[in-house]
């Protein structure tokens, strides 16, 4: 048993955990912005999938990974605007709109990928993001290789969490956004444009989901496959609930999920344990559901979540 544990909890294991957490952090923070503004963005799974495809294709043809990221973010922003059109301008059911956006985006991702690349025998791939070791810091024993020898996007995720908390709680835009999500009438009464704020939140949310999707196809797997997201978007929605709509706690939840995911990857590779690998794939989903059940009863969702805002409604 000790041998198994020693084999699992190596430096590489924790570095893998950080890497797995990165797209989750991006997408979770993205979802958090949308929900804080009062819109449940169930388009997340499809937005991530489409962005993964767009980012990969853009990088493949331009040869620039950063151009790929930008293209993925643009796809995310556009999807966010579509979500805004449906749920904000038209005030339609956020549940059904989000599912529709996911179905549409997934279909588009598959369709466009097939259109661009056809059905090659070998899936096309790109030279993925390379780790950038941060001078000095990466040489600290144990912590250095775990934290400071990663893709640039991983560092960006580290910065994103405090930045998101800062924007939400210290800036006028963040306060307006939270007010729109708690009581849109109060925000409107104070001269805040509720619709514009929700659109902005959804576009930002889409951009961050775009980065998350692109990370998966451009840093984690260096190719686009139809199963590249496989439920990670839905998990991020759960993480927002689990994190009680706080960027810090949601990021903590993402790390916890990543820990479980990294663990299952290790256990899969471990020859001592004779369990079908699918059981390990299943584990993170089961634990996510259990986690949600534990916190949801006391969850304090933004008060206006799921509520459309129509000014002239009587």
């Amino acid at each position, binding site marked *: 048993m000790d041998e198994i544990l020693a084999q699992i909890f190596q430096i590489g294991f924790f570095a893998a955990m950080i890497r797995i957490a990165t797209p989750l952090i991006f997408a979770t923070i993205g979802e958090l912005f949308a929900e804080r503004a009062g819109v449940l963005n169930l388009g997340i799974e499809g937005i991530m999938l489409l962005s993964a495809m767009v980012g990969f294709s853009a990088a493949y043809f331009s040869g620039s990974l950063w151009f790929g990221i930008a293209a993925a973010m643009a796809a995310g922003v556009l999807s966010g605007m579509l979500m805004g059109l449906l749920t904000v301008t038209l005030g339609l059911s956020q549940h059904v709109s989000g599912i529709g956006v996911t179905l549409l985006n997934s279909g588009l991702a598959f369709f466009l990928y097939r259109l661009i690349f056809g059905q090659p025998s070998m899936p096309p791939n790109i030279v993925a993001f390379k780790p950038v070791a941060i001078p000095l810091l990466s040489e600290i024993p144990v912590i250095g290789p775990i934290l400071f020898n990663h893709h640039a996007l991983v560092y960006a995720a580290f910065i994103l969490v405090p930045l998101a908390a800062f924007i939400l709680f*210290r*800036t*006028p835009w963040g*306060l307006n956004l939270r*007010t729109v999500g708690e009581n849109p009438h109060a925000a*409107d009464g104070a*001269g*805040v444009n509720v619709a514009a704020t929700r659109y902005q939140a959804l576009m930002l949310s889409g951009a961050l989901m775009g980065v998350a999707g692109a990370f998966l196809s451009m840093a984690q797997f260096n190719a686009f496959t139809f199963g590249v997201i496989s439920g990670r978007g839905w998990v991020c929605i759960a993480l927002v609930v689990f994190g009680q709509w706080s960027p810090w706690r949601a990021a903590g939840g993402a790390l916890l999920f990543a820990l479980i995911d990294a663990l299952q990857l290790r256990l899969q590779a471990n020859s001592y344990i004779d369990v079908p690998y699918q059981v390990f794939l299943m584990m993170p989903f089961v634990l996510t559901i259990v986690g949600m059940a534990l916190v949801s009863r006391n969850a304090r969702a933004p*008060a206006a979540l799921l509520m459309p805002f129509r000014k002239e409604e009587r």
Partner: protein
Amino acid sequence: MSAPTPLLAMRGIGKRFGAVQANRDVDLTLLPGDILGLLGENGAGKTTLMNILFGTYSPDEGRIEIDGRPVEIHNSAAAIAHGVGMVHQHFHLVPRHTVLENLLVGRKGRRGLLDKAAAAKRLEEIGRHFQLVLDPDRLVGELTIGEQQRLEIIKALFSGARILILDEPTAALTPQEADGLFDALRAMAAEGMGVIFISHKLHEVRAITSHVMVMRLGEVVANLENAPEVSQAHLAELMCGHELTPPLKPEKQPGRPLLQLRDAATDAAGRTNLADISLEIRAGEILGIAGVSGNGQRELAEVVAGMLPLSAGSLAIDGAAVPQPSATVMQALGVGRIPEDRMGTGLITSLPLSDSMVLPRIGAAPFSRHGILDRHAIRAFVEAQIERFGIKADGPEIRAGTLSGGNLQKALLARELAWDPLVLLAAQPTRGLDVGATRFVHEQFLDLRARDRAVLLISEDLEEIFTLSDRIAVMYEGRIMGILPIAEADVRRVGLMMAGMADAA
């Protein structure tokens, strides 16, 4: 000397919602230092007019001038920029934000950050100037209703309002709290601000305003100076267009107790919990519950409706204890229930009217047998009720939400009275209804009283309580401060009890 430039002039305002003409050719003038009372029944168009001034609705016709210059107000930001501030009847506050955060919503920051220091300073200045003091770091959810209203007024002043609109500002205040509000308003008028005070409480309008404008069915029917010779009765007539006579309430000897609560208490999280509630209502009696909103009336109603369990004490109907009250049990025991929120809790507005009418008894005969609906019985029942109560509806299949407030309430009453309840629980039964519908509802209560039934009337409308009740119980912070026979009750005494002062007499 020419007349001073009006602070505000609205000219020829018209606004239509679907088939309803909410405002028609309305003119309104406000001079610096004016406190204008805007009077009218529910649905007279007062709130619509003010929402137009505040940019929430855009008018179909007419124009607005501020300081003599025409202005376009398409949204609340523009209204605020022109110095218009509004305190809504339902506060526009975020309970999970602090006082200071609520003040900072919609304001520009300093170098991209929230400018909390400057806001705190301004809050303190306003506090000193107008006697409106609040702790900047308290969560708004923890403030009392009076404090929340103070915050709303501070919010308006904070954004530089010179024209302050207050929509039914005293609805949730004790008479004494209302006096404090009036002092602040007078101080503002003295500084050359203009105040528009929307109300249907005549005595308050008489007490505080300099001018009165009366609206009816979307139109202005009178504009008068608030002079001593203007009587409340005259204003009331202007408001509803005909003379008011109180309904007939004959003397009556109460019979056996039909509803009894003994030492009842609740312990629900986040609610105003009841403590030591003991009361009884006898056959042929109407018991009125008075109190400032949020002092446990809602919880009391839920207990009697079987929606909120007791943590201590007992509940009895017609002399028999009810060990496990629930919605089903209370209905089976003969408790008719009119909930406070008729659209949200009473009826299902998005479904046909008939669905709402049979909802509580759908699982049993005559409406269903072995789980299969008897559609003929349902239709016959609903048609009979529409007929009996004169509900204006295009047949049983019309979507309930298309009915007017008065007809919705009639439908709800019909549903509950059809099964001849022993006890009728009625929470805010006439809120938002016009004079005719109110009258109808009151007649139903008096009819129940005449037929030896018991009525528990929970209302924030003191006039309604005084008109109908045989006895008045006053609630404060989940307790009953006292129960007065109608003969011994007067507004001052009840007002003091509503403010939590034990009855002196």
